[in-house]
């Protein structure tokens, strides 16, 4: 530290004072990003009238879990939650398997046709059929109201494919693969026994990316799954958050008139936001350290 300030004096602004300015600026940015989420969190456990009166800027007021209780008592939201879990788990397994199946062959340098297949996939990143032609194909293949409509059309995520392929090319020691070849291991055995175990870090990132994509998606479900009992959580929340109305089941379970209903609706808004956002916010920090690596690997070759 002492050494730094000494050399810093020569340059006008000392290292120490620039450190302080940086910390202050970063703290302000930190607060701007975090505060809206924090506010929703405390509002979700406060009395809604106090939220309305502006008494919950910093701390909860009249702590209550009623909002969460009514969320978990709402069959519509519960079904949405169940659907979201189902789509997220199946979709993630499917997507990551597809990603690995496609990425490994593309990373094998002497595979005849490797370049052709790479271009074949990459084109779809820049050019597509658009909303309606894709919809018509999904419809023709009989996927309307089937959860596979969420997985099959977007099954091969090309951006992620490039990241995984580059990881295979750059981070798996060639000697190990050659040694396996000399030992007479088949390509498949090499893939399962060497490539898959050695790529756990990138697999973790891909699992998180897929989970986030499926957990947060509602647009694909809105188009392809018109049946209301197939809607995932965000689509169920649309009625509460965007259209601002309590669900039918809500209205029938609450006695005590319109004001009470309104109050419950407001509470449910806050608590359902937390329930929808929390799972992914808990998961991503675990793989955060791999993000930069992954993006760099992906940026090397487009």
């Amino acid at each position: 530290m002492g050494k730094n300030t000494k050399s810093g004096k020569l340059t006008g602004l000392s290292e120490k004072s620039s450190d302080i300015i940086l910390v202050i600026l970063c703290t302000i940015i930190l607060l701007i990003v975090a505060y809206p989420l924090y506010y929703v969190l405390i509002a979700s456990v406060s009395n809604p009238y106090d939220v309305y009166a502006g008494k919950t800027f910093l701390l909860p007021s009249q702590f209550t879990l009623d909002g969460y209780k009514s969320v978990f008592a709402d069959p519509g939201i519960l079904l949405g939650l169940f659907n979201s879990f189902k789509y997220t788990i199946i979709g993630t397994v499917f997507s990551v398997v597809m990603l690995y199946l496609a990425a490994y062959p593309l990373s094998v340098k002497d595979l005849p046709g490797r370049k052709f297949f790479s271009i074949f996939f990459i084109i779809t990143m820049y050019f597509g059929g658009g909303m309606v032609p894709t919809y018509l194909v999904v419809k023709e293949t009989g996927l309307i109201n089937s959860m596979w409509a969420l997985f099959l059309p977007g099954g091969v995520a090309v951006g992620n494919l490039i990241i995984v392929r580059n990881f295979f090319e750059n981070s798996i020691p060639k000697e190990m693969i050659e040694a396996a070849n000399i030992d007479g291991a088949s390509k498949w055995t090499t893939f399962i026994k060497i490539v898959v175990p050695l790529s756990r870090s990138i697999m973790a990132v891909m699992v998180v990316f897929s989970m986030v994509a499926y957990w947060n998606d509602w647009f694909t479900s809105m188009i392809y799954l018109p049946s209301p009992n197939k809607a995932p959580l965000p689509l169920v929340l649309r009625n509460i958050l965007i259209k601002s109305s309590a669900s039918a089941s809500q209205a029938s379970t609450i006695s005590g008139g319109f004001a009470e209903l309104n109050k419950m609706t407001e509470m449910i808004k806050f608590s359902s936001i937390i329930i929808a956002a929390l799972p992914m916010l808990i998961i991503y920090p675990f793989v955060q350290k791999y993000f930069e690596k992954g993006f760099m690997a992906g940026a090397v070759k487009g």
Partner: protein
Amino acid sequence: MSRNKSAAAKPAVMSGGKPLGRRIKDNWQLYLMLLVPVVLTIIYKYIPMYGIQIAFRDYKASKGFMGSEWVGLEWFLRFFSAPTFWRMMKNTILLSLYSLLWGFPIPIILALMMNQMRFHRFKRITQTVLYAPHFISTMVICGMIRIFLSPSGGLINLIAGTSIDFLTESSAFRTIYIASGIWQDAGWGIIVYMATLANVDTSLYEAAKVDGASLFQRIIHIDIPELAPIMVLNLIMSVGGLMNVGFEKVWLLQTDLNKAASDVIAVYVYQQGIERAKYSYSTAVGLFNTVINIILLIAVNKAAKRISEDTSFI
């Protein structure tokens, strides 16, 4: 076809002189692995591309992509003469342009700042928090926006002591859209810049320090040139996607009263195509959008090449 030729031209270099047929045979398991992803891509990516031709046809489900009657540019002409055509063009372009204007520099500034941060624990925490909004669904983000902007009891109105219904004011729409977009994605946008800066040779900083360069000078002369190529690449990609205003957020924040600013092409494509089942018309509108994007991409690519030839900066 061409792959066979190019592969056959230099077999000796590639795999110990084995003939092509043998090499294909050796790799059959790899081709089998590719089978499902390739088939899915053909069905759900390439067939829809082929289906774009319904923009020039009067699509009837019974007749299919090929069999429907050819109508030429009728749908495009109908779109150009739609009463809201110019409004949608203007809104789409302005929303994108302003998003780019604010959304492009902010992650770069954040990354330059974070890169100077020497308290590693604090840096890591800040990064974690900055990434957080990216992992939240657009639906939830728009729900939060609606709550915060609510005229009664909304956070913004509570702080300001007013009771304005922002989402009914078309003049406020762009600000809401762009500010919330930056809140959600500027933090995530720093990753690629941070990764680039992490590769800067630290001896450059040391040398600059010895030469008496200030923090600001080090950023200008070391960090920014290092980021320049990726900045240009990002800029090209953003301009090439200028007409791609995301459907989701606009649609969720749209109200009858802010349509003067929130009526965009993407929402129109959805409403005409999915809600009203005007398949051909919607495809034509979407194709028009794509064509403008491609033209922009080519133009900005050329401009970027010219700039990089003229100056040593990039």
